[in-house]
């Protein structure tokens, strides 16, 4: 799309930071500001920066690849919500626990985080689908 050297360099540096920021936002989400939705938006921005610099590259256009991402996210969220019913608990029962790891200390594992991951994936998929579709028109 654009051959700007400055933009390309800036994106090369900022993109990993953005991805990392998204990961932090996601992991922190349960206890500090952040969460799947925001992390999803940050990731989408990172993906889009790449789009600005490299265009669609040699990606096969015309295929709704990212719709599958949306479907996967929805499926993950739905499965997390359905899983407790297999154990006889009501729909959407979340559980959480803590495990102790060496070096890292106490880490929380929550099924809600899996659901949040579904939200994250859907948000990324949605934004990228729409923007890719809009931009690959020409």
């Amino acid at each position, binding site marked *: 799309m654009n051959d700007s050297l400055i933009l390309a360099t800036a994106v090369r540096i900022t993109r990993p930071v953005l991805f990392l920021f998204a990961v932090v936002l996601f992991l922190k989400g349960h*206890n500090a*500001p*952040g969460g799947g939705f925001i992390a999803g938006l940050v990731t989408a921005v990172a993906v889009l920066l790449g789009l600005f610099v490299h265009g669609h590259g040699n990606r096969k256009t015309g295929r709704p690849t990212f719709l599958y991402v949306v479907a996967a996210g929805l499926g993950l*969220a739905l499965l997390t919500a359905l899983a407790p019913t297999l154990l006889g608990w009501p729909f959407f029962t979340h559980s959480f626990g803590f495990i102790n790891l060496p070096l890292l200390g106490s880490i929380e594992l929550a099924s809600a985080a899996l659901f949040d991951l579904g939200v994250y994936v859907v948000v990324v998929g949605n934004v990228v689908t729409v923007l890719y579709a*809009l931009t690959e028109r020409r």
Partner: protein
Amino acid sequence: MPAVFLAAALPFVVSPVLLLFRRPDRRAGLLSAAACAGAFACFVSVALGASPATVALPWIEPLGLSFSLNADPLALFFALLITGVGFLVAAFATSYLDSNENFPRFFSFLMLFTGSMLGVVLSSNLMALFVFWEMTSFSSFLLIGFWHHRDRSRYGALKALVVTGSGGLAMLLGFVMVGTVCGSFEIAVLAERGALLAASPWATPAALLIIAGVVTKSAQLPFHLWLPSAMEAPTPVSAFLHAATMVKAGLFLVARLGPLLSVVPLWTPTLSLFGLLTMTWCGWLALRQKDLKALLAFSTVSQLGLILVLLAPAEPDTTAAGLLHLLNHACFKGALFLLVGVLEHELHTRDLSLMGPLRRNMPFTWLLIALAALSMAGVPPMGGFVSKELFLDHLLDGHPLLALLAVAGAVLTAAYCFALAAGLAAGRRPDGPRGQDPSPSLLLPPALLVAATVGLGFFPDQLVGTPMAAATLAATGSSVTGHFAVWHGVGPSLWASAFAISVGAALWWGWWQKRVPPAPTLLADRVYDYALEQLETRARRLTASYMSGILWRYCSVILLTVIVGVAVVVASQGFVMHDGWSSRHAGPWDLAVCATAILAALATLRARTRLAAILALGASGFSLALLFALSAAPDLALTQIMVETISVPLFLAVFAFLPPYQVDRVRRARPLHALLAVAAGLGTALLLAASRSQRVAEPISSYFVDKSVDAAGGHNVVNVILVDFRGLDTLGEITVLGVAAIACYAIIKLLSEKEAGR
């Protein structure tokens, strides 16, 4: 695991598994047949008392809903019929379908249907029954449209879905009325509460609505239109769904709910009238068909009418006769459909007038067709004779006009049966296509069905006397007085039978053979087509009237709705605002940020170019984010920042699609727009402030804050609410996101293709 549950669940388990097979894999058919056989064996074990007949599967108990199964003798009778015929049809279809057909899909749909149909007959709860009822309509839609590249298939599939689906919805309304009046949806409980229903003014409407469900599903006049169109389905489907099982769902419901609903005076006469008229009129239509499948379709409708007449009174003797004829019909009609499938397969035509002499070319096929047709005609000593005698017995006691209709129906039935059997024997085209008898794998399933209907003629009581008596007891609550026999002694019904057969033969010989009148277009068909076309054009016109595609109109409508909503609330409740609507006082920073937001909004309005407008709008949005941050809402602030950030590339991408930026075009409407915007903004702000200042209940937020760590293990309340406390809402929202992505993608692709096509 109880055998009933196992048998009912088996088809639903097998259905998705089948999709894993490769396309031309015939083993998909064998697996389906095995599933049917397994379910059949389970039902036999239940029938023999080796396994409990009821399984409790609670669903939503506070609403009185359950998926409990109750395999009483009536349900077992149907379940055995479904799985038995299902087995034969699956076995037949396995060798019948061409090797390039999509086997996994076909058999997956077939199993889906089998499971739904078993659900209909086994459910002990009306709502569960309704769910399965609609699922049979849906799977029938899929199966009729199996050859979806054909226009007629899609037309027939849609028609079947529209007719049976709308009847099903009417029935749901009836179920809700019955359930509300009687205080339960459990069929066993309902059966004891007939008195409650009889005393209620809702009884008649409820009965009429349920009748609507019955007559649409069982294709009674004037809803018979969907069955002939459904003949576009592959022949095994026609044999299974549209002769042996699905169209019997309506009859099953009549037998099941008869004791409850026959307290409504209208119930029995209405159903009997539907049945008699359908039997006679569609017998007449069947006689005029040249297409063998159409002939069988109309004949099926006619026979369903006959059974409906027998089941409508909910008395033990007629019910037993009705169930016997139902079984007979499933056997001979199922066999006939399969055999017509064989003919089509061998001769590549279904036209009766193009057939060669079958007795010489395909002797076994013809023999089976002839035997099945004779049973349908009610010729002794076939099974059809036994049940038709009982039918004539029942009606000759009644009103003379009804008796006349019944005999006329029997005459017409005999006539088209002779036309079928004898017409095929000689063939109208000696030089017609010459086929030969197919392999035993294709002849065996129909042969077994024919053997069943012949056997039912010779030993009706020995074969099915006991189970029929049990089913009748379960359906009506009282025992049968008589028993089945092929010889009833000389009486009015025997004379009527003899009359019907001889006049039918004469009608065929003297009139039909000379000239087959052309098949008429159904009046019901024309009404349906017209109604559907009108619905479509009118819906399009209505949508076009408010979907102008002009953005400011949409915005005006939305804002007006807000204003009217606020105005209604204020007018009815009065506007009261106490102190303390704000949780904190605005500091200098807040004011500065608000001022920036307002200035940016004004700048958006004044912008001469689109890019300037977008940038100004972004400034306004970022100011808002700052305000959120100042108000100790970091999650909101972060989200707002991200949304604003993504809006920029979004706008950039959309730029190419947009027409030139014309601020002046709507200048005249500007004062009005300003008024709307100010009123909506001010109204919303005041409403929020007012509602915050007068709490009528404790805010729920404190509960969330308290429980967040203990119950959900998270310190970020916003996130905990999103993924845990209000997780279902979020699931709904991300579903909307997904749908929006698909819609955006589709619209953009459509636009590009449109432009590329130009």
